[in-house]
Each structure stands twice: as C-alpha cells, then as structure tokens.
C-alpha cells in the first residue's frame, strides 16, 4: 500500500466529507488543525509520503500490517475482528466512582493500568465547556472525570500526538474504531519515525455504531437543554429507537431518527462496530444492565484484563454463546451497510 501525502488525503477523504475528526493527522505538523470538532488544512502541503495520510483511518487500510502489529498474525477478516476471548465485565471493588455509562469497565481498566504502571499516561476523552476534549491523564484518580459516552467526534489522536511530541512513551488510549485503527497504524510505524517507537502502550476500543457531528450535536444540545449541565446520554437497546439525555433536572427522550441526521458521512463507511484493532474492546452488554461486553484481543490485552481482575479493579462473568451470535450479527450488519455505502460512493 502506497503512503501518499496531504493532497491525496484531502482528495480521498476530507473533500469527500469522509473525515471523522479522529485527530490522527493533527499535532504532527503545522498544516492540519482541529477546532471545535472539525479538522482543517490551514495551509497547503505538497509532501509525500506523509504521516497524515499514513495514520488516517479513512485511507486505504493495510489489514495485514495492522494484524501483524497488534496480534502477530495475518488478518482473518472476521466480523468481530481477532480475539482471544469475550467476557462480561464491570468495575470491581477498587473502583469507588459510580458515574459510568454501563459497567465502568473502561474506567476500571485505565485506573488499573495507571495504578500498576502498565502505562505511563492515558489519553481519554473529557469535557471542556460544551465540547468533548481529549485529555492527558497521569493520575488514576483523574480517570473518573473522563467517564461516560460523549457521542461526538473527538480529536483524541491529536492529544496522543501532542503527548508523543512532548516526549511521552507507553501511552494508554481509549478510542472508537477509527481511532484505535489509527493507533494501531502509529504502532506499526510505517514511516519509521523514531518518536513513534514504543509510543503506544495499550489501546482500548469502544464499540461504536456511529458518532455525531460535534458542531451540529453540541448546537442541538445547547438549544434543547438551554445550557443546562448534561449528566449522561444513552441509546437504550432496540426496539426503543430513542436517544436519552439526562440533565441535572430532567430526563428527555428524542426520536433516534432525528439524532441520526447528525451522523457525519465518514461514519457511514466504517465497517467496524467493535473496534477490532485494539488490545481490548468494550461496549454495552445488551440485556444485562450495569455490565459491559469486553473483547480481549491481544496477548497484552489479556494480561491487562487478568491483572485487573486479580487486583479487584474488574469483575468478570460468562458471556453466553447466544450473546456472541447477537453481537456478531450486529457487527456484520454494520460491515454490510458500510459496503453498501462504498459501492454507492464509487458509482
């Protein structure tokens, strides 16, 4: 796979409206910058090959390279990606906070990774005013401030690059499918950049069916809540077809089809529901409130989860075959929709 430059990145991705604002091209050069959930090219760049093109999750993917990097094997092309095991999980007794999206598995794993020194620092998504913002977390006690799903595109990778530029190594990062794919590419280091060596320690993928355009959705939230602080947002399992927003004073429901209008085009071509290029992936456990589905993919990921369980950061339960079929079906559906979109796009 040929690595091209900014010009091609613009032609193939951004000009087509396929950018998902993951931040993979930001903070590595002075040309791509992120502002309020959108990424812009501020000046033209004529170089090739470029890191921006190489790391972008929306350019052509070298699946074998990523597979070798993450799992030491060739790509197998399965709907749920490669994995060692799938379990049900939730935060264990070591975790004091209770403000979680589901079972608190993400917070628990990062709290453990920082406490145990598995990673040197974490990049997670927090909140700044009304917009989500990636944050560099050095202390386990700050992990909780980044809990709950934001449903908006966040340039998490920009914060990763900035941390790397500041000399950080062995970072732990939580991100959606597009973001962990970019992380896996950085880890593969296709352009042989010295600063990228050992920069990524652990990656945790978040299940994602879609994300929302940050500017549109934050404007929607501001309009609907009148600036009231949002406590949580959630998409209840089907067939609810609603989007729940909980503020400090009330809980409101919106038809999901209204919310879906704010999905960026770039999400439509994403085939990956369970974030296959991560060390571990976490999502909701439909039908078991308060629990997460946890897919353990790499050897490193397996070690991470086992230590977290052993040290009471995490509690595990069985993940029955029926749930696996259900999950695979969901992942397959997303992949098919993406293929349909891409076929239409080519026409």
């Amino acid at each position: 796979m040929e690595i091209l430059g900014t010009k091609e990145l613009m032609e193939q991705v951004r000009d087509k409206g396929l950018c998902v604002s993951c931040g993979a091209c930001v903070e590595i050069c002075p040309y791509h910058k992120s502002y309020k959930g959108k990424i812009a090219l501020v000046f033209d760049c004529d170089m090739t090959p470029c890191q921006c093109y190489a790391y972008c999750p929306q350019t052509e993917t070298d699946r074998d390279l990523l597979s070798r990097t993450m799992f030491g094997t060739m790509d197998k092309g399965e709907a749920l990606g490669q994995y060692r095991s799938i379990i049900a999980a939730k935060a264990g007794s070591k975790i004091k906070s209770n403000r979680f999206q589901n079972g608190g598995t993400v917070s628990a794993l990062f709290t453990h990774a920082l406490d145990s020194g598995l990673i040197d620092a974490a990049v997670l998504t927090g909140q700044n005013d009304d917009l989500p913002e990636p944050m560099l977390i050095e202390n386990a006690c700050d992990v909780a401030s980044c809990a709950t799903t934001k449903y908006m595109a966040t340039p998490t990778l920009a914060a990763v690059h900035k941390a790397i530029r500041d000399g950080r190594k062995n970072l732990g990062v939580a991100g959606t499918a597009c973001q962990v794919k970019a992380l896996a590419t950085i880890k593969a280091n296709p352009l042989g950049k010295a600063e990228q060596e050992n920069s990524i320690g652990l990656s945790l993928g978040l299940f994602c069916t879609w994300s929302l355009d940050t500017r549109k959705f934050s404007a929607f939230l501001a309009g609907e809540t009148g600036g009231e602080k949002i406590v949580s947002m959630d998409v209840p399992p089907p067939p609810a077809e609603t989007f729940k927003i909980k503020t400090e004073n009330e809980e409101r429901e919106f038809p999901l089809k209204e919310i879906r209008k704010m999905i960026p085009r770039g999400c439509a071509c994403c085939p990956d529901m369970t974030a296959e290029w991560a060390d571990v992936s976490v999502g909701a456990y439909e039908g078991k409130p308060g629990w997460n589905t946890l897919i353990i993919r790499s050897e490193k990921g397996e070690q991470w989860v086992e230590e977290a369980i052993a040290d009471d950061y995490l509690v595990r339960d069985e993940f029955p075959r029926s749930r696996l079929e259900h999950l695979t079906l969901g992942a397959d559906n997303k992949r098919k929709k993406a293929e349909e979109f891409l076929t239409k796009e080519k026409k």
Partner: protein
Amino acid sequence: MSGLISGKKGSRRLLMGNEAIARGALEAGVKVAAGYPGTPSSEIVENLAKVAEAGNLYVEWSTNEKIAMEVAAAASFARLRSICVVKQNGINVASDFLLHLAGSGTRGGMLVIPCDDPGALSSINEGDTRHFARLLEIPLVEPGDFQEAKDMTKWALELSEELQCVIMMRSVTRLSHASGNVTLGDLPVTDVKAEFRHEGFPLDPNEGIITSAPVAFRHSQQQEKLKKATAAFESSPFNTYTGPEKPEVLIVTSSACNLYSREAINILKAEERVGILKLGTTWPLPEKLIENRLQKCDSILVVEEVIPFMEENLKILAQELEPKIGRKIFYGKRDGSIPSVDEMNPDLVIAPLAKLLGIEYQAMSEEYATNAMQKSFFAAPVRDLTFCPGCPHRASFWSINNVLKLDNNRGFVCGDIGCYTMATLPTGFSTLKTLHSMGSGTGVASGFGKLTQFGMNQSVVTVCGDSTFFHSVIPALVNAVHHKSDITLVVLDNSGTAMTGFQSHPGLEVDASGGDAVKLDIESICISMGAVVKKCNPFDFEKTQQLLFELLEIKEGVKVLILEQICALSPEKKAKKNFEMSVDESRCKGESCGCNRLCTRIFRCPGLVWHEESGISRIDEAICAGCGVCSAICPVGAISRKEVAYE
C-alpha cells in the same frame, strides 16, 4: 526636491515630472493644494507641503479625494489659485462634486490634476481620466514633457481663472515619475486676500451664489466657456508640429506617448517621412489646427495609451471635415495597430509605423529574443510581490487565515486598496477574495452579511487600513451597523498611509506639513457606532486568533478587530530591531514531514531564507526586521528570539 522654492529664474534643474508640476503651481501663485495620496501623484502635494510655510501656502492631505476637491474649490471660490491632485481613481471618488463644480464655475484659477497609471504599475486598474473631461464638459490639457509639466501648470491656471472654469491637467506615471531638465521661471510675490463674495445678484459669476442651478442657464454658460477654451487651444504653445510639411504618415499624440513617438521616428530614421502633431490640449480638440494638419496627410497614426480617446474625437472631426479635406485613414486602437491595454513604449509605436512606412524592422534578432526570454525565465530568482520583512500585515493575515480555515465554514475576506491588497497573493496566504476600490471591502461585506436569508452561512470578514478607514470605510461601516449586517471588520492599523509613503491622515497627530492636527481614534469611532470592538497587537498570534474567534461567534451585527502595529518601514521605527533572531540548526526539520519548510515556503518572510545545501532555514540578518514573529510559527521551536537592549 531641494530648492523647489529657492531655484532662480532661468536656472536649469533635473526635475521629476511631479516636482515640475509643483514648481509650476508655485510659479502660478497657487495658495491652496489638496489631495489624497496615490501613486503616481503623491509627490506633487508632498513637495508643496514641504514649502508650505516658506511659501505661505495651505497644503493638506484630505480625508479623501472628493473632500480634497472641495477644499481646493473653496480656495477658488475665495479667489485664490488652487490645485487638487489625485491618482486616476481619485477622479471617480470626486466625480460627483466635480460634475457640480463644472456647472457652477470657479473664480480663482483651479486645476484638477489626475496622475493616471497606464499599465497599472501601482494600481489595480488603468482607468483613463480623460473621459471624465468629456463627461463633465471641462477642458483637458496634458503636458508632453518635463518642461511642459511646469509651464503648462501655470498656463492652465491662468486660463482657468480667465474662463472661470475648472481645468483638468492629466499626467501619467512615466511623466510624473521620470525626470528631465526644466528651466525655471519666476516665483511671483503675491499678497492675495481670501474673500468669498456672495452678496451680489445671484447669477453673477463673481458676486453671486455658486451653484450649478438653474441648470439650463449654467450649463449653457459652461459650454460657452468650453468654446472659449477651444479658441485658446488653437494658439496654445503646447500644441506643436514637428516634421516635413507633407508627411507620409502623421502621428497624432500627447503626453508620454509624445516621447515614445519621437524615439520611434528616430530609431526608424524616418524624420523626413513622418510628422508628429503633439497635442497639449486634448479636449475639446482645436479644430482649425487639426484641419490644417490633416489636410497635408492622409495616413494618420494616433498614438495614445489605454482607450482610443483622441482617436475617436479625431474621427468625429475628420468626418465633419471630410468635404473640405477628403477621406483620411486612421490607424490606432480601433484597427488594432496600437494595443488598448497596458502602457505604451517606443517598440509599440515602431511596429505599426514601420509597417506603414514599409520598413523592415526588428528590435532584436529572434535568436537574441529567445535567449533573453529563456535566461530571464530560468536564471532569474523568483521574486514574488511580497510584504516587507517584519510587515504587520503578514502576521495579521496569518491569523485571519488560520481562524477562517479552522472556523471551517468557507469564510472569506473582502478587501480593498493598500499594501494589504497583496493578501490576494501567497504573501497574504491568498486570504482576500474580493478586491475593489478604497472602502469597498466593507461595503461589499455589508452586502454579504445580509445574505443569510438566502442560505449563506459563510463567515464574512473584511479588512481595511487606517487611512482607508477614514477615506471611505466609515460610511460603509455605518451601513453595516444600521442594517445589522453580520460582518467582522479587521482594521489593519499601521499608523500611516504606508503604501504611498507615510502621508498623514486623520488618525495621526500631524498634518501634511508636519504641523499639529487633531487625532481621531478609530476604536472610539467604532464603539460610538455600536460595533463590538476589540483591539490587539497582530504580532501576538494567540491573542489575535482568540479575539477573532470570539468575534466570529457573535452572529448578528458588526464586529471590529483593530490590529495595531506600526509599519515595519515607518520612519518612526528608525529600522530598530526589537529582537535578534536565530535558527537552531539541529532542531530545524526543514523539508521533512512535520514541517515541510513552513517558514520559508508558507510564511515566507524575506528575512527567512532556505539554505538548500544543508536543508535548513536561516535568518538573513541584513534584512530581518527583528519583529520576532517567526519564532511563534516554527512547529518545533527551532527559531528563537532574543530581545535587543537599546541604550
């Protein structure tokens, strides 16, 4: 010019055309001169301002050209001699007043002096002001060399006073800015008293009221004056003929084209075959003089710049005279012999003339021409039009570009005339997307800002300089505020009319002659209009961009950001560097991914140079202005600045 006022009668001096005009004004006893700076006209007022005190003149840089015209007219109404000097587009600005002045008539001699810029060497138009003379029905004269530039000024002022009508004397870049020998005349000792008489019979031209109404009466008076002017033009010393009595080809020309025509004839050694009728009075045409010349030649080549003004007027005359003088064949713009855009030169006269004379002429061999073209294309270094080292505009547009790109809704900037015009080019990151006359950026933006009802949601930004703000932005800003137009005006305040040479303007404490003046504060003016106003130093990128983001967030009404930083070339700066700049060569990323020469490829301050062999950027100490700005753009912090301590 030193000695503009001390030069003795009869002495010869090398004078720039504009200096010659200034001296001519002094020799005519001009008391008031007003203008608005604009290349190639500025040196006339500038030179008169220098001698204002010694010569007991009143000289001002007016707020705009229309006001300059009104100020000069007032002097004429008070029976003083006056001149108003502008560049070509200044006549457009002043034309409304001029139309009425042409109708009302004048008293003391008054000249309007536009300096045109054929070829647009210092303009973004090559407007031809000669048409205004015909449109406004006022006499038009054009000096053909440097001596004439001086002598004609005096002659035309006297004629204006006699006719009681304003006269246009047009110069062009190659006359205003070139130099030639001029024999000086006497400087009169005058002791005139300014007095406006208005108590007489209302229609009395000397004692009544001054107005263009009743229109039919005044208009017919005006046309009578034109007839008198034409009569005077018949014997004008500025209409000359050189050549054989019956030439094969008659060149009719004027202004700088007189010099090109003379050179062309000389190069072709055609002195015995071609005659030059050089006209100093170009509208209305002196009919008898022309008849006399046309009678003796059937092939007429009209050599003039830009549009076929003389050619058309000559053709009308020739048509009327045909029964008497027979049919003439004209060569010029209409048949493509002479181009009707860009400035002329001797070669452009030689081409059609050689053809008419059947002379084989090639200025240079084809081989030489090809060689010269290749050499200049491949060997000459690329030197774009660019902002100077340390120019605050580069910093301002850096921020404006960044903010608009990040704002990411295809925002754009409407601009107008000033050094910042160059922001249409890479030196200003190609940020300007509309560019017209002075003040029009804000007017155009005011219109864009009202298009939301038709679905437009792009950010609308406009820029203007400090002098332009006073010149013509204020009314546009009033319009935008009044109509709640959603725009952001960025005032690029560099404390002077910098592009034309730091002439004074209403935002400064000095006037044209260096005397005390009342300074008007742009910030207070904008606040009093009801705009949201912020102000900062454009060299502070972070603050500038933060303020601009904040202002763009405000969705209704006018926002103003004043970016205040003195021009890098300002005499006040005395070329002092605030910072010593240096590049840490070990850190410079050069052409690699992560930088790709941001400083020398995009920021492109001439003070930064790319060192090809070592693949790093360096500071050119000789031209670096020491503004310190580039240290903030380097992505790896390789450019550092050290404050310079002055005693």
